[in-house]
């Protein structure tokens, strides 16, 4: 290659497309939790790998933004690294792994442990935007249910869980009611992250590329995880602290360490873990 690179529009998508997505985003923010249809485009990534998130990010990003991309909390997995370098190249933005420094955080299924601030935007890559999909396969019917605020069916799912397992067993994509009105699938984030959505200072944008839907949870919005009076919502908990940084307040991943079934539990949020580690061992260099 002799240095020749194909020319793309700023942030890859053409301006008409970005305008269309921004219109959908404005509507989504105006009606918290409502799924807005949009004309999903092809992006250099297979559908189901985060095309919705990439399109939302492309529509809102500008040269002054600082982008962080995480994949299950980690900054250093293939998908996160690729998406970060993609936007670095096509949108000429600074990228970071530091949650506090980022203005836009594109994520697949985690919300950072570091509390989000006013002005930050979370962009989620959503596989199935419809929380009622596996209970009611007809799209016409689920739209009707959203329109008429008929969410009894979602409780049937929770009832079945309690009847079968003695507790609400759903541990990710745990359904929430946004602003007291719309039932929303918070994308497959662990239920551990649900409380972070309630009255969050940041703007949360959800993009489902394959399903062609955009929805949003604006800052300072009530987000209630569904439950029964006598079986209240309980986010997932962990018995042991992170094996690397000792944190007791974070979501842990299981890591297999040898061929004999050995495993350890460590923070899924790598930025959080590194930060904790540095606090504990200020004299050490970063590994």
């Amino acid at each position, binding site marked *: 290659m002799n240095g020749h690179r194909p020319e793309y529009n700023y942030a890859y998508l053409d301006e008409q497309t970005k305008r269309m997505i921004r219109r959908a985003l404005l509507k989504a923010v105006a009606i918290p939790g409502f799924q807005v249809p949009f004309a999903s485009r092809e992006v250099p990534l297979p559908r189901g790998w985060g095309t919705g998130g990439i399109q939302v990010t492309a529509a809102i990003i500008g040269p002054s933004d600082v982008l962080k991309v995480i994949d299950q909390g980690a900054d250093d997995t293939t998908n996160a690294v690729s998406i970060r370098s993609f936007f670095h190249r096509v949108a000429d933005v600074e990228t970071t792994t530091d949650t506090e420094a980022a203005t836009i955080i594109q994520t697949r299924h985690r919300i950072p442990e570091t509390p989000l601030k006013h002005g930050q935007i979370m962009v989620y890559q959503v596989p199935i935007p419809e929380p009622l999909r596996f209970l009611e396969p007809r799209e016409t019917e689920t739209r009707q249910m959203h329109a008429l605020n008929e969410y009894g069916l979602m409780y049937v799912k929770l009832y*079945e869980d309690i*009847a079968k397992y003695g507790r609400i067993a759903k541990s990710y994509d745990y359904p929430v009611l946004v602003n007291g009105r719309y039932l929303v699938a918070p994308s497959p984030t662990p239920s551990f992250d649900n409380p972070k959505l309630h009255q969050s200072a940041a703007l949360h944008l959800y993009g489902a590329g394959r399903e062609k839907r955009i929805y949003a949870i604006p800052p300072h919005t009530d987000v209630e995880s569904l439950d029964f*009076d006598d079986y209240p919502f309980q986010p997932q908990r962990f018995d042991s602290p992170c094996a690397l940084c000792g944190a007791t307040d974070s979501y842990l991943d299981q890591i297999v360490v040898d061929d004999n079934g050995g495993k350890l539990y460590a923070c899924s949020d790598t930025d959080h873990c590194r930060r904790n580690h540095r606090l504990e061992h200020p004299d050490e260099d970063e590994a």
Partner: protein
Amino acid sequence: MTTDRPLLRARGLSHRFGNRWGCRGVDIDVWPGEVVAVVGESGSGKSTLLNALSRRVRGGGGDVEYQLVSGQVIDLPTMPEGELRRLWRSEWGFVHQNAADGLRMHVTAGGNVGEPLMANGWRNYGQIRDVSTQWLERVEIPADRIDDVPTAFSGGMRQRLQIARNLVVSPRIVFMDEPTSGLDVSVQARLLDLIRSLVSELGLAVIVVTHDLAVARLISHRTVVMRHGEVIESGLTDRVLDDPGAPYTQLLVSSVLRG
């Protein structure tokens, strides 16, 4: 509640499929606490009439009025979808011929009975479960089958489960489409017994569609005979079946096999 007017009143109710009439110019009243049987041969428009009355099919002609529990009389054809669905959840029931149409086959019996409660805003698991258990017992399903799915139930049990699911919210009117067809005779008899006792206990109004005159005889107060989409005779069940006026009704009654 005033009882000087019917719960449900239809005038000139018609529905057509293309250029064929499903039902045509039907006048029918259903009073509180009364069981009305709609009988007739296959294809006579019984089910279409039931669906048009309950607004499961739309777009036909005629007036249908319903008196709400508040006493207010409403016009069903002009009712908004949301209001109609609220009626469905709180005041009406519909028992299908095939239980699989009226049940969620992969949700447990308890979940099936509890769903209408949850749809009406019940949010206490213990209470939902208690009421489900009571209802299962009332329809003679052993309480220890509460966590089994209907696919594991016999035909008669499924039908009883469907009835429990419909009655759990104490509806005021229940539409039944051939509730006992497809069951064997002994199960039919027990189910009819059950329906009859529940109906009188709860003071329900019921419209039951059946091709089986014995069903009409056993559970209904009044009978409406249909043919080619029109009502050809109606009256007290005993009168219609013992002393049929219309030639077609005479034919229908005389064609019943007697043992």
